[in-house]
């Protein structure tokens, strides 16, 4: 049934500055799947994610998000209802309070007046509070975001996603600047929240262990091509060795 398709790629090719970054990628991600993208640096992971949010202009209907071709989305507000993105912690506005950063997830629903009001008196406060409780930050609501630690800032970003309520979460190396324990913590929270809300999670990761531990499916990219696309239980050490070692031979 088509209803259950979240992301569909139909031979997606991306050239940047006359170099082929992604060549003819095709796969389908079903709704509610937890997919990890792994692969060596320069494999095209970030380009793939950027293409999914329309940062790399694709002319044809190569990308379909929730059964609608990407170029048919009217504007960023429309797309924001379907896709939310989380990266390293640089996506928050450090000078705003935690609650205002979380409520930025509501901006697509709010009119101008309400969004300006909210900077002085936070609006829809309950929604933000619930989200912050779920990521365990209810005691830092009014702190300036830049005063939080890296892991805490990533939780704020998670809370913003909960408020934005997209159907698909794209995560671009969400934990690459955190220590292993904190990275594990953030990924486990992210995958738990995604399963609870029945969201589709599509995350690029450096850490293969985290990908195998928390995700249901792993797609490996190398030089812009898919080298394997398997359920995480079927990903063997040999496959992984090939994925990362081959790069050095080339």
């Amino acid at each position, binding site marked *: 049934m088509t209803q259950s398709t979240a992301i569909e790629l139909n031979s997606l090719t991306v050239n940047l500055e006359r170099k082929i970054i992604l060549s003819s990628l095709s796969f389908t991600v079903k709704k509610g799947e937890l997919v990890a993208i792994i692969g060596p640096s320069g494999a095209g992971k970030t380009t793939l994610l950027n293409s999914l949010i329309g940062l790399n202009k694709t002319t044809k209907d190569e990308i379909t998000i929730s059964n609608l071709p990407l170029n048919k989305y009217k504007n960023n507000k*429309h797309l*924001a209802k379907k896709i939310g993105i989380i990266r390293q912690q*640089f996506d*928050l*506005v*450090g*000078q705003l309070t935690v609650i205002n950063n979380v409520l*930025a997830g509501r901006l697509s629903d709010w009119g101008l007046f309400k969004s*300006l009001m909210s900077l002085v008196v936070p609006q829809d406060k309950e929604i933000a509070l619930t989200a912050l409780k779920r990521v365990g930050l209810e005691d830092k609501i009014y702190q300036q975001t830049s005063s939080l630690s890296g892991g805490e800032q990533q939780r704020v970003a998670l809370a913003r996603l909960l408020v934005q309520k997209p159907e698909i979460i794209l995560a671009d190396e969400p934990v690459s600047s955190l220590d292993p324990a904190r990275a594990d913590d953030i990924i486990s929270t992210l995958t738990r929240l995604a399963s609870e809300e029945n969201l589709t999670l599509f995350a690029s990761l450096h850490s293969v262990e985290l990908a195998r531990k928390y995700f249901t499916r792993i797609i490996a990219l190398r030089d812009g091509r898919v080298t394997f696309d398997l359920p995480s239980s079927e990903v063997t050490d040999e496959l992984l060795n090939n994925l990362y070692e081959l790069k050095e031979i080339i």
Partner: protein
Amino acid sequence: MTLISRISLHRKLILTISLICAFFWSVFSVSWDKDLFNSNGANTTFLILGSLFKPNLSPEILILGVKATFITLMYASAGMLIAIVIAVIFGTLGSGVLFGNSVFGNAIATISRSFLGFIRAIHELVWAFLFVSSIGLSPYAAVFALGIPYGGILGRILADILADAPKNSILALRTSGASRLQTLFYGYLPMVSANIISYTMYRFECALRSSAIMSFIGIAGIGYQIQLSLSDLKFDEVWTFIFFLVAMAVLLDFWSIKLRESMNIPKHERKKMNWVQISQVLAVFLALTTWIYIISLDDASFFGIFTENNLLFAKKFFSSMFGIGVENPAFLDIEQWKNAISLTIETIIMGVLAIGFTAVASLLTVLLASKNVATGQLTMGNSLLTKPFFYLIRGFYIFTRSVPELVWAMLIVFIIKPGIIPGAIALALHNIGILGKLWAEVIDEMDTRPIRNLQLNGANYVQMLFYGVIPSVFPQFLSFLFYRAEVIIRTTIVVGLAGAGGLGQEFKMSMSFFDYTNVTLLLICYIVIVFVTDFLSGLSRKIVKENSAIAEP
């Protein structure tokens, strides 16, 4: 969440609201009736603006302009040399890196910093007036008048930069047995030199403008030509000379950019002929020519200043300033005090108005003046329309900041009757160029990732502005505004000299009536408002700085 921390969160908001209130207070304390303009103000405006587009480019005027520019450059370089000497001595002492954190070291640092604070509080033109009254109209009067306050400003920056230098490598030097003086040459100076040099270059550009306005005490140069042409109502010549000022500023800016670029390249990778070398040669050349020039001027022998006659004259001047042998000195007279205080309030109103005008005009233009917006990188929008605006506004900024406040004031009083408002407009015009450029660079250098993310969250243009751009740049904007406010208050006295009212106008009158005790009284009031402004600005910048890393201008 305690109440106090919630209040502290809104401190910036409270600060902003008080600033806006101060601006409205100043707007409502001046009268804005029809009488504001000169009787034929409209005609003069057309005349002045019309000749902007057809400046006088006849060979005689151009040659005159080149000569005058050279003289202005000479005075500026001579003044900068003195300033650098003062800055190196007192800035190093004031930084506290030489004597450590002992009682003696702290005392030296405090004394040096206070000395620097005092000499920079007085505007170079006021110094010039004092020197001319005490040692007569000598080129040295202008050179020292320039060098002393510039030494104060440079010295303070040097002290701050040295004091803020990262301590790790200094500690390493100390543990390997270096003395404090050795750490200065092996640690501090190499670390801060790039910073100091680029700031000195900026100050050199300012010194050119200050040198130009030395015409007000009768020193030749580009300012003098502007003044002559103004009194003949030859506006086409005025603009020609102003374009010379603009050209000097642009050239110096270019030099400074090239030098900074070259300094960022590691030594062994630089080309054979690089800007660091060119700059060294240029600096030595300027230093030599400038002193040869000044000494070769008529009766400009340095020791000629110290003739008996001059000494007697200087002694008389200073003793009359202190009221020695003067009946009823102004600073002991209650009526004079009342007058001085009302003039002080007038001056403050002029300053606040100027700061407000500057802020509003910069806010309205700054978005279009930033590269991020012009290339559509920040908004990811259409960049076809924004590019011409970018060049237009950047050009406007360069133009307005190249013209000294005093020259703007002299031009504007042809249109608007002398008083507070033309003074404030003149101050604002010059500062829009500076603040606008500083603010635009803040937007250029901001982290765009959070803004992009807001857009992905579905924010529209205005929401991106209020949730992303404004919170990110606001602390730095305020910090720069306060820094300009200090300069503006300090310069109110100068536009007053051109008839813009306040303390400056009275100062000039008292000088020409030889009423030196009143000069003292006016200077006391002036220094008090300069210090109070510096204090308030420092306090406000501290509030703004909390939790956000901000570079000092």
